[in-house]
């Protein structure tokens, strides 16, 4: 067995309203920041998986991304080996 570190990035699907992203964009004026657009706010889950090999570990993370970390109806996720 060996240990693998992953990150799972969860983001609102395209076309889905992202109130947080909107609020951030709306606030940039107050910070005097310009030229920022298309802000999407999502979650990032980092985790360590102990498994026989990378494939086995990835499989576990894929499953967690699908079943636990993301809401497939409104969010998409991507797995990122670290």
């Amino acid at each position, binding site marked *: 067995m060996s240990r693998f570190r992953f990150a799972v990035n969860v983001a609102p699907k395209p076309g889905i309203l992202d*109130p947080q992203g909107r*609020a951030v964009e709306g*606030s940039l004026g*107050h910070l005097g920041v310009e030229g920022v657009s298309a802000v999407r*706010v999502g979650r990032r889950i980092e985790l360590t998986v102990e498994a026989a090999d990378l494939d086995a570990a990835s499989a576990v993370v894929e499953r967690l991304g699908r079943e636990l970390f993301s809401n497939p109806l409104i969010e998409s996720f991507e797995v990122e080996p670290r």
Partner: protein
Amino acid sequence: MTRVGVVVFPGSNCDRDTLRGLELAGAEAVPLWHEQGDLDGSAAVVLPGGFAYGDYLRAGVIARFSPVMRAVAAFAGEGGLVLGICNGFQVLAEAGLVPGALLRNRGLRFLGRDVRISAERLDTPFTRLVGGGQPLRMPIAHGEGCYFAEEATLDELERDGQVLFRYVRENGTRAGVEQDAANPNGSLRAIAGVLNARGNVAGLMPHPERASDALLGSDDGLPILRSLVEAAARADHAGTVLVGAR
């Protein structure tokens, strides 16, 4: 009459309650719009509860950049009295005007219920009329109220008398940290409210303005608002009060 300003951020939802509570406490309470650069000559300022900017990203962080907050920071810098309630506390923490941060409740759920708190100090502009003895009963209503600061900071706060309120049990004893219903958000050292080092800026999670009328179950919050108004009145004439930390 002493003028006390209540900041209205987009998403504030306790501003009207707070204005009313301050009036019951004898103040001339005026709303301060988040986009204004001055405080309309307020002798004290309250940041009310709610969900400023929806609490999106992180409670209080976006509001911190509102124009009015520059005025509030300057006012606080001169020793002006500032009180943050619930979301207002979160804004003050994000703005660095009070120490620490407010994390999500340990149970990861929003909690609306009555809690009991006791004032650790009775000699501050926020507690002078509170009087010792009975714990104060008032509601909390928040999802991110778990007070956090690093151990070293917490020790300093205790040493310098910057812990203003703590969650306590019905019998007045200090609440535990984990799995104690008396400290429902799991705040470190059961801290419900803190002071800045200078003692003129305070934040607390419970809602004194919702406990300002016995008809609604408790008026234990009124003395807190009265203390503020009275201190502000003195500040009015005698310039700003300085409650040096111990």
